[in-house]
């Protein structure tokens, strides 16, 4: 039986900003890992991508927090 790790946190993140600032590029770079040199058309309305991400730094962050409490 394969070990499948289910998400423990489910977050909605929104990218805002003026036109041609690179919001789509950031989203695509993070979620799909590439950058398109060819340029792209302006996003109409909105689009969305999902990304499963394992936050490994949380342990360090958690330590920091404990120290401050």
């Amino acid at each position, binding site marked *: 039986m394969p070990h499948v790790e289910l*998400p423990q946190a489910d977050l909605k993140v929104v990218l805002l900003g003026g036109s041609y600032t690179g919001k789509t590029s950031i989203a695509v770079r993070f979620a799909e890992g590439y950058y398109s040199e060819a340029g792209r058309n302006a996003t109409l309305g909105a689009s969305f991508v999902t990304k499963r991400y394992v936050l490994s730094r949380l342990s360090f962050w958690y330590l920091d927090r404990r120290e401050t409490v």
Partner: protein
Amino acid sequence: MFSFFCGFLLWDRLTVHGVTTKLQIWDTAGQEQFKKLAPMYYKNSAAAIVCYDATNPKSLEEARYWVNELRTNVSLEGIVLVVCATKCDLNVELDTQRARMLAQEFGAIFVETSAKDNVNVTYLFETLVSRVLNLREPEGGSRTIGSSISRGSSPLNGSTRNLMSPEQRIQGFTEGDPRNSSFTMDEKKFDDDDMVLKRVREEPMDSKCDPTTFMCGDAGEMMTEATVQKCGIQ
């Protein structure tokens, strides 16, 4: 003695597995004519990234507009705000002072990124998720991350999870209450850490899985339960 045990348990989980997060990244249109649509997207968001073009001072003004809009329409306590400079590969000598001040003014994180050269993009989301999880911790300070992640009894079993179509899940995300976009925590079910520990001990463990799987699976159900409630499938 108890607190030591509790801390140890958490530490184990966190260092071995990290926290798996599912990010739903909504990419909005920046054009003037789409500005009215934006509330649809930033409502119920756990975090907002306000981007500006580092090479274009005018876009910083637009970023200021977005930050102000967020401030008037959502409470900044409930949303993590990031001011993000983009295209940082284009100009090495950037004046980020004004953007930094903008971020500081609203308690936002400031990150300089370049999608082209892959600079700070992962860092941006990593910082953001860390900050969101920090925010979602229950009030009081004594509670730990583990208690908010792991959860007691859930009415759903594993098979129910598979019955839902992606559309239903999305519907659950966008139409839910603000808490639905992040950890959904039922305060009543978490009287203290002790209860969580009891749950851990009582839970029958699958011999083929390691002990930490319990937490992962259970938290997955937590998410699904919230989504199902929003969709009206009970």
